[in-house]
């Protein structure tokens, strides 16, 4: 009984995890890329192996680390602003219908506007500098934070608010003890989605207007026709985005464990 499943157990665990499948599709993707690059060849289309080598080389370059620092400065500041302003804004919108009536249209505009289109506008009014990049990252990512925080507050059981009031809680305590913790799972989802958009915003503004940081690096390598390094830079940007999203997901699971006991345990 105990001996039989033992040899199968490790295999099971491997088959149940996501990474073997992801590894498989990645290998397939790399193979197709390599084959295609060898068929077509050319200066502007490096193969997979060449890109991988260039990526490793890049990691040893001071140039890359400077670009990473410059870009992430804008990312951290901009996304920080998005969270610090977006969460309270979302809570206000979720709690007060009247405010929402006024603000809803602007939120929709932020959601649907192609953000690249407002970059020139931003640069003209704020200038070509850190401020411009920070602002764009914030504008890019704040919508996700606001919309999800609002949804989170709406999902908070109104009887919890009534309960808190019955014990004499004021508005401030209702925010701190009921709305914020109750909306936390949705807020964390907004943070995770917002990070993706923040990275996009960070790169786009550098590519389109303020030639600096990682986006600037891409433009430089393109100008010098250094295709492998160009690809390597993109790989590094993707790696950073994936890393940040994994961290956000991990924090989300860590902070909102109760939300899962809730759905499985239920009221019974």
């Amino acid at each position, binding site marked *: 009984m105990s001996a039989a499943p033992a040899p199968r157990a490790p295999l099971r665990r491997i088959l149940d995890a996501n990474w073997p499948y992801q590894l498989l599709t990645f290998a397939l993707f790399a193979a197709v890329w390599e084959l295609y690059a060898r068929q077509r060849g050319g200066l502007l289309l490096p193969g997979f192996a060449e890109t991988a080598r260039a990526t490793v080389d890049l990691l040893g370059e001071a140039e890359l680390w400077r670009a990473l620092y410059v870009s992430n400065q804008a990312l951290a500041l901009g996304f920080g602003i998005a969270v610090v302003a977006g969460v309270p804004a979302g809570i206000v919108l979720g709690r007060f219908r009247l405010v929402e009536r006024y603000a809803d249209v602007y939120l929709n505009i932020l959601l649907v506007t192609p953000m690249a289109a407002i970059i020139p506008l931003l640069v003209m009014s704020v200038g070509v500098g850190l401020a411009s990049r920070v602002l764009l990252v914030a504008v890019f990512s704040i919508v996700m934070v606001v919309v999800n925080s609002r949804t989170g507050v709406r999902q908070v059981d109104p009887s919890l608010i009534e309960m808190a009031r019955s*014990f*004499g809680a004021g508005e401030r305590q209702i925010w701190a*003890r009921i709305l914020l913790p*109750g909306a936390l799972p949705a807020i964390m989802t907004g943070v995770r989605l917002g990070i993706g958009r923040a990275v996009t915003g960070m790169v786009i503004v550098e590519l389109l207007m303020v030639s600096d940081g990682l986006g600037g690096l891409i433009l430089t390598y393109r100008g010098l026709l250094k295709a492998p390094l160009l690809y390597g830079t993109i790989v590094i940007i993707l790696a950073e985005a994936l890393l940040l999203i994994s961290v956000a997901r991990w924090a989300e699971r860590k902070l909102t464990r*109760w939300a899962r006991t*809730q759905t499985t*345990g239920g009221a019974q």
Partner: protein
Amino acid sequence: MIKIRGLGKSFTGQDGSTVAALRDVDLDVGAHEFLTVLGPSGCGKTTLLKAVAGLVPWDDGDILVDGAPVRGPGPDRSVVFQDFALLPWATVLDNVAFGLRMRGVGRAEREERARSLIATVGLTGFESKLPGELSGGMQQRVGIARALAVRPRVLLMDEPFGAVDEQTRRLLQEELLSIWEEHRPTVVFVTHSMEEAVLLGDRVVLMSARPGRIADIVPVGLPRPRAGDVGALGKSGEYAEITAYLWDRLRAMHAEHRPAGAAS
């Protein structure tokens, strides 16, 4: 203890029509009395309770608790909710201590008081569990402990055992009676169960629907303490007599309403 005079409240529906939830409600609840409020669904009994709690505003009349008019929630009253209203992210201990925290009681004192009430409702050992890990009956024990932790003079209970199964309900009724017999807070207990109203109450207030009005007040002469033997009480002649009377009244009310509300 509680004095309600001429209480009236109406709701405005989405089509603009007004529905009288409560009309001309006069009621006195004595100190240390266990009053049960019984009525069909939609009779306004929960609205009445929440008005006393200071959670919903009303249109006409006055509510006085100990001579002071009710203008909102106060430390003299606490509520046990039908759907438990526990914080799903907080442990049993933090949930029980929640009311004390809102009232600014320091951490050490509120945890000590919370632990002693957790023991009172028989949940020792579950202090660090989350509500989602507890059964419905255990969740309501947490709700009761939280309400008692603030040492209210009036305990307002809104169909507290409506969402738990029959056996659990029996056990909770017995436990509530023994807690009440020991501490003797004034209790207003809303229920839609005749049996429960009679087994628990000193008096049963019978309400009629649309508009919500007090139709009758029936004294229950069953001996106290009742905690040990709820089952035997249920077989006594007096219990049978009172429930039969209440049932007649409820059925008559239902017949009255049938022409207007044939759909229900």
